[in-house]
């Protein structure tokens, strides 16, 4: 049985000129011990979709969903309080900015201890041991000393580690990491990613990794979802996606990467811009920028459908053979 199953999740925000559809009809399945990456350009709805799962969006957001099952529980039937209780327990989230989860006014040890107290329990001494072992497992040197440190006394990499320790405190079955390494240096990023993968294995967690770094995706994920303007346009195994992208957007995005393009001459680019609230196309959202679009793409909306090896939202997906 899958750990997480989401069907047809949509999120809209009220604006001065009506509703803005930030997330549209998202489906997700994450199995225990699986790493799923969500990629897409800024504003494609990656964070909003995850915040909707965690029930962390502001109240004015309009969220609709046909199915939301986590670890066998139907979240749609739970009250807000019951759902909040799952956060930090069954499911935990880590963010790009450690300071969004760590409170600058309390020591790191105290904050992790609070999380252990809420989600696991145990006596004071037991919990302290648990916190120290968490700090140790995220690679913080000298945990006993760091226990009493305040977040601002630690470097970016160290506070990221502390935040991961806090996320793990409730022994989550699903960990959602939203750009966990974007703010870090390359060498520190490598350390943190390595750590996340090790812990994911060790605790047999499902992991949803949000990033715009295709390199990170290629090296870590088993399954990949590509989002464009709030929609999923392609879902596939990492191997298939990187070797045979089928959606024209995925293909265009990958070929625009300097490391995948021919070494000389200009880089392939995608003309135009991501649609905004007021110029959302009628048909396929990618049609105005798509090199393969036909008349039908302007008027009809393609559905995310199982085609070839993966799920693709396109009337004219690229065949494996036509790919370079």
């Amino acid at each position, binding site marked *: 049985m899958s750990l997480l199953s989401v069907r047809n999740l949509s999120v809209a925000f009220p604006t001065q000129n009506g509703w803005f559809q930030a997330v549209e009809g998202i489906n997700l399945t994450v199995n225990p011990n699986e790493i799923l990456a969500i990629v897409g*350009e*800024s504003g494609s709805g990656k964070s909003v979709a995850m915040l909707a799962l965690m029930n962390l969006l502001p109240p004015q957001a309009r969220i609709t969903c046909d199915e939301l099952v986590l670890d066998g529980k139907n979240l749609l039937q739970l009250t807000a309080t019951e759902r909040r209780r799952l956060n930090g327990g069954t499911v935990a989230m880590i963010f790009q900015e450690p300071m969004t989860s760590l409170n600058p006014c309390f020591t790191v040890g105290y904050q992790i201890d609070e999380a252990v107290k809420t989600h696991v329990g145990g006596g004071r001494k037991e919990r302290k041991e648990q916190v120290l072992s968490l700090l140790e497992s995220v690679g913080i040197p000298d945990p006993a000393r760091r226990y009493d440190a305040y977040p601002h006394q630690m*470097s970016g*990499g*160290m506070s990221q580690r502390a935040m991961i320790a806090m996320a793990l405190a409730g022994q989550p079955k699903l960990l959602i990491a939203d750009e966990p390494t974007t703010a870090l*240096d*390359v*060498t*520190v*990023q*490598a*350390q943190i*990613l*390595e750590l996340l993968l090790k812990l994911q294995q060790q605790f047999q967690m499902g992991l949803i990794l949000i990033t*715009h*770094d*295709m*390199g*990170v*995706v*290629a*090296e870590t994920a088993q399954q990949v979802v590509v989002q464009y303007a709030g929609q999923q346009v392609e879902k596939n195994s*990492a*191997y298939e*996606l*990187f*070797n045979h992208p089928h959606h024209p957007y995925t293909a*265009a*995005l*990958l070929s*625009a*990467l*300097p*490391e*995948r*393009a021919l*070494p000389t001459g*200009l*880089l*392939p*680019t*995608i003309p135009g*811009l991501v649609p905004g609230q007021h110029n959302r196309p009628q048909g396929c959202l990618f049609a105005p920028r798509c090199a393969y679009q036909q008349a039908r793409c302007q008027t009809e909306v393609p559905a995310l459908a199982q085609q070839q090896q993966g799920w693709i939202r396109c009337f004219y997906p690229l065949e494996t053979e036509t790919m370079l």
Partner: protein
Amino acid sequence: MSEVLRAEQLCRYYSVPQGFTKPKAVVRALNGVSFNLQAGQTLAIVGESGCGKSTLARALTLIETPSAGELWIDGKPIDFTHKPSAELRRTIQIVFQNPYGSLNPRQTIQQMLDEPLLLNTTMSKSERRQAVATMLERVGLRPEYAERYPHMFSGGQRQRIAIARALMLKPQIVVLDEPVSALDLSVRAQILNLLTELQQELGLAYVFISHDLSVVERIADQVLVMYFGRVVEYAPKTTIFARPQHPYTQALFSATPQARVGEKRERIHLQGEPPSPLKPPSGCAFNPRCRFTQTICKDELPELRNLEGSQVACHLAPIG
């Protein structure tokens, strides 16, 4: 080819307060950096956050005065005791790290691009208007955008505006501080192409600061790797990518994820994190994180020396 930029042992120190009781500390943000750059070429500067890349950019573009060292722009030595001439300032321009913060929100694009011409040239109003229109077109923006304000543009468009502004005075050298880091993948490719085209067309020399090695590999001719204010490796691009010599460069290159499945490289694990600028390690600044450290590394500062076509500051190289 002619040399348009030369730096010799450039240094820039900052004194930073440490609270009321302690004396001010000195941060050696830039600590003896030397290189030269030919017309039409691109020198990439790479290194971790805080290693002094932006400090170097500000020194090169005469925004800040170096604490020590020498600089030649277009063959002329710079006299830092005098205010740089308008002529000199025109020669070298900068595109700042943050495309959102670097444009004045109260100026239209027209005003923004017109300003350098107004201050530095004797062009008439209609000539300037024409020059702005030509430049907008050149960087791929529509002429009618001239009357709009920065907030009406996307990140990629703002970066085009920043590039346009840097080019208004027809510089020979442009210093680009992380010009594509804040941009989305597809926009990044557009801006990189624009920079390539402009370089070919105008013979520009670029100092290109970036932490993205895939971008560096694509556009650089020379690569200079900095660590903690110093050059640890300086080499032609093909040489350094074929064989990184310094242990830090090796770790950095191996830590960069590749957007390919199934080609996972052997990764060099670095211990720890970059040192605090207030507590510089003795000897080689990389020694606390290096996997090869010997006694000499803790005692002596390694000098840059020639090694198989690269300049490397490591006691033990060749190694690894």
